[in-house]
């Protein structure tokens, strides 16, 4: 009985290695390509740090990463501050028409950005919000709110009602209940929303392209796309920039991953 299982184990391991190779392929390409100079890249082989050292003169990487960070964190902050109480409200604080309102908000998840893009663009421009980060932040926040509300509501459904009731009886008030009781146990959900929204917003192109008009405030995704759209694009430099752009999202995921299991499953089983 043991022998077949061991070879089975090896086959499994082999399969997983193959999948890993496939999944790591983009990183491989990015690293290898970035370690060439442009002429080496066009002609074939070679190894050079040139593209990396040129990178900051080609695109203001540091500035753009900073911009991305500002936009991402602000949007996520709003998404959490807006979604968590709403999730609590829809799951525990039944009020008239709350089911309908909940469905409407969740159905907003299905609205593709492009459907509302034109009016949104003109509105935000008329409100003079495209000159800084605010316009983009509000757009990201409103696009991420439905999902956040959905996740928090589902998550809180898994929290026993008695916990809240006990707090109210003790004289906490609903805001107190939210702050003292709900918030601490919501950590996995917060982590889940943060990770998923971070990746979504960090990697987004369209909103950053259209709603942040100042070149100096451009996020890194847009910077890379503009670089790719240029007349004289150096692919190795582009790849170097891409590696830098991918790092923060990866770090966020690796940091939060142990919360993701709980965050996604709480409430789903019920």
């Amino acid at each position: 009985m043991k022998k077949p299982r061991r070879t089975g184990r090896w086959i499994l391991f082999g399969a997983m290695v193959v999948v890993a190779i496939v999944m790591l392929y983009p990183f491989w390409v990015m690293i290898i390509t970035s370690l060439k100079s442009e002429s080496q890249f066009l002609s074939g082989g070679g190894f050079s740090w040139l593209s990396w050292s040129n990178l900051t003169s080609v695109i203001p990487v540091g500035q753009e990463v900073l911009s991305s960070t500002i936009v991402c964190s602000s949007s996520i902050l709003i998404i959490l501050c807006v979604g968590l109480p709403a999730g609590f409200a829809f799951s525990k604080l039944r009020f008239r028409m709350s089911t309908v309102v909940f469905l409407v908000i969740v159905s907003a998840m299905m609205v593709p950005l492009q459907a509302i893009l034109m009016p949104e663009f003109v509105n935000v421009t008329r409100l003079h919000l495209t000159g800084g980060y605010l316009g983009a932040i509000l757009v990201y926040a409103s696009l991420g709110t439905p999902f956040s509300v959905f996740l928090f509501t589902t998550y809180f459904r898994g929290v026993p009602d008695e916990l809240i009731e006990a707090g109210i009886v003790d004289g906490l008030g609903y805001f107190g209940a939210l702050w003292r009781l709900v918030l601490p146990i919501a950590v996995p959900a917060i982590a889940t929303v943060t990770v998923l929204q971070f990746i979504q917003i960090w990697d987004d192109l369209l909103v950053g392209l259209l709603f942040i008009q100042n070149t100096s405030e451009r996020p890194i995704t847009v910077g890379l796309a503009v670089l790719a759209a240029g007349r004289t694009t150096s692919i190795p430099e582009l790849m170097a920039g891409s590696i830098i752009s991918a790092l923060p999202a990866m770090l966020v995921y690796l940091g939060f991953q142990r919360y993701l299991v709980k965050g996604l499953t709480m409430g789903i089983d019920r």
Partner: protein
Amino acid sequence: MSTTIPTTERPTFAPRVRRLTLKRRRQLSGVLFALPAIALVVCFIGIPIGQAVYYSFTQWNGLTSTWIGPSTWTQAFHNTNLWTALRNNGLLLLSVPFALALPLGIAVLLHQRVAGWRIFRSIYFLPTAISWVVLGLVAERFFAYQGTLNSIIHALGFSHVSTNMLGYESEALIALGITFVFTMIGTNTMLFLTGLATLDPSLEEAARIDGAGRWRIFRSITLPHLSRFIQLAFVMTVIALFSALFSLIFVMTGGGPGYATTTMEYLIYETGFNQGDFGTAALYGLILFVITGIVGVVQLRLIGSNE
């Protein structure tokens, strides 16, 4: 609330009054807590949809709009490029089963807890962190005439075969679909793995003792348990297909060759921002919204039937 009755005199009424106040307070808090979310969604999603409906009947360049009327809609449906875009979206939907089945298989693999599975799990999710823009660029090099795909094909011995998928109208969409499936592997695998982790192993053991084969266990125990996760993954994948694919197209193909990889989202961007025809773009946006809505309702029906 002036009807406060001293509890010492009328104990039977007091709890009822307190409960009434409590209910009102609960409802009020509920509304207050939900208000910011409602406001945000209404202002930035609801109102633009209404505006899109209005502007779809106009000739609009962002600055001035001229009312035209329902003929804008009838005209729009005469545009063959609209139908091409719809067809492309439909064809890309065919990639969704792959975007679900592959991660499911990988999740099952990971679930076997082979040595180092945690490292593998992180590796499989990492590409999700890469921007679609970058993935599109990498994919573009992969499918290029002098790209990696051809190198692999040649290395396998088929040296006379060379593909140029992005250069052919009939093949570019396939290349796009393959890239899309690749990008969805990370999130969906994680989702399914999470679901598998919540599966009670004793159920599997019991079934195995009863003599059920591996496939039977998978079909009758694992899959039903995962149904909620599959539904969530389905919803997220379709949403990504209809909205996030834009970045890939923008960088990989620019909608071409011809209109072969122009999807609805790309068509909207092109009509609005390249042609300055904001009115027609709003119109297309509404069509996209309706379609996404229909797909969403279909999904809900499927979920509902499983309950």
